[in-house]
């Protein structure tokens, strides 16, 4: 067991050092100011109405009504591209928030370990959600994402209900055993 954990630690260390070396190398190359704005510069979220439109099926139903296969394919490709740009922008925004936080607090003398861990956990969760969204868009496309989210929500609710009824059953059984 210790061999496996040693191997994992060793490989993880080498990968992280590669990331650190790449970051240092990139930083040394980026001494000149960047001119063009990119997805990485995002500081404000994209307006919700616009994003809702990307994931909405209304436009898709209109395009399907045209009964032109090439337009349908083009529409799907474009929507997927826009949705992926939105996910990248959102994850860049999350990274910017945490980077700004780290740069502002790293010199603070009363930095709290638990607060920092909490923020880092929130950051990891959001990055995970963005990763899952990106994969889901790649696989299913943005138009079916709403359905997927609703399906996941219904599934989660059903599991929660099952768990509640199971817990209620366990409590009832222990109550009966106690009274007997």
């Amino acid at each position: 067991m210790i061999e496996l954990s040693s191997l994992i630690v060793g490989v993880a260390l080498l990968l992280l050092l590669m990331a650190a070396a790449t970051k240092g190398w990139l930083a040394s190359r980026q001494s000149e100011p960047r001119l063009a704005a990119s997805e990485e510069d995002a500081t404000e979220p994209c307006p919700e109405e616009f994003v809702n439109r990307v994931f909405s099926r209304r436009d898709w139903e209109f395009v399907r009504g045209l009964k032109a296969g090439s337009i349908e394919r083009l529409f799907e490709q474009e929507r997927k591209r826009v949705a992926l740009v939105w996910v990248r922008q959102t994850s860049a925004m999350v990274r910017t928030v945490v980077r700004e936080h780290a740069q502002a607090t790293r010199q603070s003398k009363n930095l709290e370990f638990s607060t920092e861990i909490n923020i880092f956990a929130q950051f990891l969760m959001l990055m995970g959600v963005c990763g899952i969204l990106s994969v889901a868009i790649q696989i299913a496309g943005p138009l079916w994402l709403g359905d997927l989210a609703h399906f996941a929500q219904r599934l989660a609710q059903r599991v929660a209900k099952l768990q509640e009824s199971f817990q209620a059953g366990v409590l009832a059984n222990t109550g009966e055993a106690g009274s007997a």
Partner: protein
Amino acid sequence: MLSQLIWWSSIALEIALLVGGLRSRLANRFPVFYGYVGFVVLQDLVSFFAFEWSPGVYKGIYWVTEFAGLAIGSLVVFEICKVSLAAYPGTARMARNALAIVFLAAVAKGFPTSAGWQPTSTALEMERALRTVQAAAILALVALFLVYSIPFGRNLRGIMLGYGLFIGERVICLTFLSQQNHDFWFYAYSASYIAALGLWLGHLWSYQPSPQPNICVQLEKDYQRIAAATRRRLQETSAYLRRVVRS
């Protein structure tokens, strides 16, 4: 033959590194690191003559100096931490907590179950267990440096990358190394130090100052305000993502 080649090239590179450090006065800036390199040169020379004189004595000398090198190497990690985080007390505090957690986890994992800490375990198993703890400590530190975007000068980055590479390679080699055979892992174990020496020579040939932070130190009460604002912004993003996907 290959062992001899690795041995002598290590000694030559170590001497070149020491001469370069004395010439550029980097040895004054990183005394623990150069002390460590000096110790390894001495270890290599003593081990070489002991090997020629009596292989039995060599075995004892090898393990004693190997564990002494491991202890001095840990001081190098503390020197990296001290020099790089001198201007960042907040991150230094996080680093202390992270290191404490790593050592507590190592003790908790090692004492009751593994063979790593027991008196019956071999020197090789002991070294693997200790090197793994060292690797985990460096891993936690590098992760902190990346998260808090701690700027590194070329020299300090070289020391950190070289020592991290050496420890990472050693841990991987020790996982597969057998005491009986002189296979690939035996030579990779010996050669891992040469890779680190090459990196150090490239980064430590001349002095280059570390970039200084240009943001003024925050007031004590500002931290709570910044942390609350960050959490609020992350929560807003989370709610925004939920709303969009469920719409």
